[in-house]
């Protein structure tokens, strides 16, 4: 029998080392693993490369949690790979001072790059970003007389994701728009830690409704209701 995957947020944060490349799920505040992020802030692990949709907010606003914004304010991120940083001015500041490197990627391209890594593809061809700064240094490939950018797979060391219902084996269901990048990141990292809003027994989730298989999940943290 396999041993339990359930650990505390504190132990989970200890699994992350200086210099790691993290993927963190969420779209602004929605569907981000807030408890894991808070714990990562407490531990002050530095020099992180973080791949995520956006740079969240600079601080919690009422019950809207800041998301990865806190890690930026905390200066724990040396390289942010993201699609949007407009909601957290601290990111732009650190980019301008050179304290943090920021790589901006179109959202659909980022999603496919993460998926390509998880799915064993060498890359995908997209029309997005053609004739813009995004095409810089990228290979262009013509297929049936149409031009595309070759976008490469993007991997991470650790994925921090958020699940709504997670069984003890690690099967995950997401709720509403919390899904976003979470299931893609779960397949693209060496280790995957899921913060579960609710943990249930194996067999309680209808196999038709599981979105991420337990085989991708290494650790489960009880996130509880936020």
């Amino acid at each position: 029998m396999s041993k339990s995957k359930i650990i505390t947020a504190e132990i989970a944060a200890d699994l992350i080392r200086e210099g790691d490349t993290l993927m963190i799920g969420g779209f602004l505040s929605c569907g981000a693993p807030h408890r894991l992020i808070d714990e990562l802030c407490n531990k002050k692990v530095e020099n992180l490369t973080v791949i995520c949709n956006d740079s969240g907010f600079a601080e919690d606003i009422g019950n809207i949690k800041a998301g990865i914004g806190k890690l930026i304010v905390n200066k724990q991120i040396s390289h942010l790979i993201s699609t949007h940083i407009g909601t957290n001015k601290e990111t732009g500041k650190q980019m301008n001072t050179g304290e943090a490197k920021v790589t901006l990627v179109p959202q659909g391209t980022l999603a496919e790059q993460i998926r390509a890594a998880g799915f064993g593809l060498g890359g995908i061809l997209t029309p997005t970003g053609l004739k813009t700064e995004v095409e810089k240094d990228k290979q262009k490939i013509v297929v049936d007389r149409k031009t595309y950018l070759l976008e490469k797979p993007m991997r991470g060391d650790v994925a921090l994701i958020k699940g709504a219902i997670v069984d003890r084996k690690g099967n995950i269901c997401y709720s509403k728009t919390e899904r976003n990048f979470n299931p893609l990141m779960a397949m693209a990292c060496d280790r995957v830690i899921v913060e579960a809003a609710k943990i249930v027994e194996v067999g309680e989730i209808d196999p038709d409704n599981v979105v991420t298989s337990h085989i991708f999940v290494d650790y489960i943290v009880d996130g509880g209701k936020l």
Partner: protein
Amino acid sequence: MNPKVLIAKRAAKELNDGNVVNLGIGLPTMVANYIESGQDITFQSENGIMGLGPAPEKGNEDLRLTNAGGQPVTANPGAMYFDSATSFGIIRGGHVDVTILGALQVSQSGDIANWKIPGKMVPGMGGAMDLVSGAKRVIVAMLHTQKGNPKIMKKCSLPLTAAGKVTDIITEMGVFKITNKGMVLEEIAPDTTIDDIKKATDAEFLVPDDIKTIDIK
């Protein structure tokens, strides 16, 4: 009429029964308020929902259900949630009929710039580059000028979001179509003259003989 309301109301008229529509943040979001009653429009939001409903009543917000701007929303009956790859598959794959979004600049050949002012503001492109590349129609809905400076240009001076993808421009002064023959002013706002528009516009545009007046209640 408030110019933003005029723009939103006029943009709403571009939507047809059965359309799948993605609205950008800000002014474009207002368009949803003005669709004809009984019209079957499905709103998609790139953060992962097909079938976006109206804003929830105060106190009924669900932190797990937002639009791409992070605002609480609701889901209509028959809605669906999906991951970001699927969301952009829907967008990039040409399954969104219309996207309506704002811009910093648009050119007469349909180029659009809305993600970066070098040295000043770099919010990032978010989903805009995919939306502009993938949607069947790209309608820019924006105020005609920014602090008196024209935003409709011969050529964009700001970094592009995409080249040659805009199909329509709707401002408080008029409605433009980007065609093979050039940009055409198809409708003009009441109490506005073609001369007014020319002064507020850097781009060249054609004025057809049968130009109409924007008809909004």
